[in-house]
């Protein structure tokens, strides 16, 4: 099986701050890989480094066989990476429809994907004309994921999708992510270990800006000591 993404010993900076100090992992194509680690470990920064939103000063990021570190973020994203950021980043001044429309990379993307997206999140259809701000947390999260699905992305980077959501909605979100992972590879950052273990096939643990462990999720689930050591209580 080939790797759609390889992150090779990267060191990343946000402004002057040296935040990632040697993160190294691969993402096999066609599965879900979970990035785990405590708060402030550097998971979000890892996703930003892949997209070029944090500057990678050392190491390589290889997406579909191509070195992308140092390229401007919009060019990296246009290669086929969708981003669902922490806190959703829904555009407040845009309607739900426009929030989807803006993600088009080619004319007609949204129309082609409409059925797929609304099968996944039927609720969105009802809110199309509302403004981004008028949505609840769960609806915003659906919209943020849907936005990443509009263009043809072979890789999705999803940051803490379950954060601040009610348990029923988390269940719904899990189903949706599982469904969409049949179409694209997913890198999932998740604080909620239960959610991560239900979805992911592989895991990578990040600790203080370094990748410290990786492997199959089912091995990690069995290794209570490791979970305790890196992720605290589980």
């Amino acid at each position, binding site marked *: 099986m080939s790797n759609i993404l390889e992150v090779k010993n990267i060191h990343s900076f946000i402004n002057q701050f040296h935040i990632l100090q040697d993160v190294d992992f691969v993402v096999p194509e066609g599965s879900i890989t979970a990035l785990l680690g405590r708060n402030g470990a550097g998971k979000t920064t890892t996703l930003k480094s892949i997209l070029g939103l944090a500057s990678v000063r050392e190491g390589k990021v290889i997406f579909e066989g191509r070195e992308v570190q140092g*390229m401007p973020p*919009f060019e990296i*994203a246009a290669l086929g990476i969708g*981003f669902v950021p922490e806190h959703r*980043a829904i*555009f407040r*001044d*845009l309607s739900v429809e426009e929030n989807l429309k*803006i*993600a088009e990379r080619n004319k007609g993307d949204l129309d082609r994907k409409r059925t797929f997206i609304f099968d996944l999140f039927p609720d969105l259809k009802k809110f199309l004309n509302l403004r981004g701000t008028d949505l609840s947390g769960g609806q915003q999260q659906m919209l943020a994921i849907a936005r990443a699905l509009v263009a043809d992305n072979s890789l999705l980077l999803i940051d803490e999708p379950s954060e601040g959501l009610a348990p029923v909605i988390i269940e719904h979100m899990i189903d949706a992510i599982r469904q969409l992972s049949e179409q694209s590879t997913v890198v999932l950052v998740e604080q909620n270990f239960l959610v991560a273990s239900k979805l992911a096939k592989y895991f990578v643990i990040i600790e203080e800006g370094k990748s410290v462990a990786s492997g199959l999720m089912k091995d990690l689930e069995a290794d209570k000591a490791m979970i305790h050591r890196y992720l605290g209580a589980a």
Partner: protein
Amino acid sequence: MKTNLRKNSKAIIILVIIAAFLFVAARGMSGRDVLITVLRGFSTGSVTFLVAAGFSLIFGLLDVLNLAQGTLYMIGAYVGWTVYVRPDTFIDVLTPVLLILAGFSLSALWGRLASRIQLAPKARKIISWLLILAGLGLLALVLTRYPIAIWNLNNYSESPITYSYMADQGLRIIPAEVTFEKISPFLAIAGLLVSSAISAFGIALLNRNESRSQTINWRKFLVPALLLLGGILAAVFNAQITSWMFAMSTNWLFVIAILIAILSGVGLGALMETTLIRPLYSRPIYQLMLTLGLGTIGLQIVQAVWGRPEFVWPKPEFFTGTGGACPATNLADLLENNCSTVFLLGGRVRVYDEIFIPIVGIIVLIVVWILLKRSRIGMIIRAGVQDRQMVEALGINVRRVFTLVFALGVGLATFGGALAAPSTGLTPVMGERLLLSALIALAIGGLTSFPGAALGSLLVGLIQQFMIKYGQIGIPLPFTDVVFKPSPPLVPASTVLLMVIVLLILPGGLLGSKE
């Protein structure tokens, strides 16, 4: 809707108070005076709005306070005037401008080549800058040998008053044709093209990383080729085009002048953003100093070329008719005789100043509004104002949108200058005054709100014109016999007063965000 009303209740109360104030004040005036004053208010407001809207668009997306906006407004007026009154200068300048643009537009092609060149970062930087400087030096060398009337500065800066006066009388002075003497035409054309292409290569080398994934196809050659062709044609047929423009109907000449003024603003804006503003995005103070400095430099250049004294921009034929049924009392008469004034409520209203300018202001308002609300670019602008990183993460080249918005904002300012000049006349200080008005209008309306810019500009225009009118006829103070005549300095002071009152109650301005 209800929540909207509640959210804006303070703004509505202030507006009602202003309206009541104007209404009470207007009771001392005849209906005719009120109408004219309101129309003039709309006119001043429209011009202020063009500058303010540009300022606000730029600030909203790029966080840049473009204090050069006033100077650019003035430049728009002078460029437009030059096309209108001195088409010979315009055509002379057109050739070098098009050639330089052709050279620089090659930079998109150079990107691919530049990314192939492997150099140590330091060496690359030094070589890039050497190339840029060498290119610019050569450019200046060739350019000063170009036959353009402006190069004879002393002579040129004396002449605008004479030319304006004669054009106003309907007599056009046709200046002697300037010819290539100091340099052969071929060398001049090739020299400009090559020197700007060298600079462009230096720039491409400097920004090597940005253009790695570019593909080259014939379309990339189209723009440079068209520019080159245009430049050469303008050089070859210089005399013919010039005399054709001198003979043209002033209505068409006016349209061309306005278009060129807008285009020059768009070009200047794009140039400013890509070369000077872009490296300073993380340093707001330097940016402020830069735009302020550019404003001053622009002012000096304009004074050197066109001189300090005030002169007029004669209005086009369409607005200067006096014979027959003028001043017109109905639309048919107006259109048939191209009347310069019409009778409204028994008063004479100037068509260009008090009717045409407000109409153009409203059209621009609507067009930009539609652009923001309905087009993809507008959507990206609205999203980018909130969260640039997310827009980039969607695969959108936000930088290009930045350049576009800056160019558009400056284009609005130069448009404003060219539109106002036939009414206000041209003087190098026209920009400072207007920048002040525009900033006050934005503070009143809300710095990043587009409707706020319109509302603030209108209020500033109305207050100014009412104060001017009171200065002429006096305002009877209520409950007394005193008639108060505000002196001219009170005109700008009154707008500042309004701003202070609004900001004390609503720190974000009338329609600004409440964060």
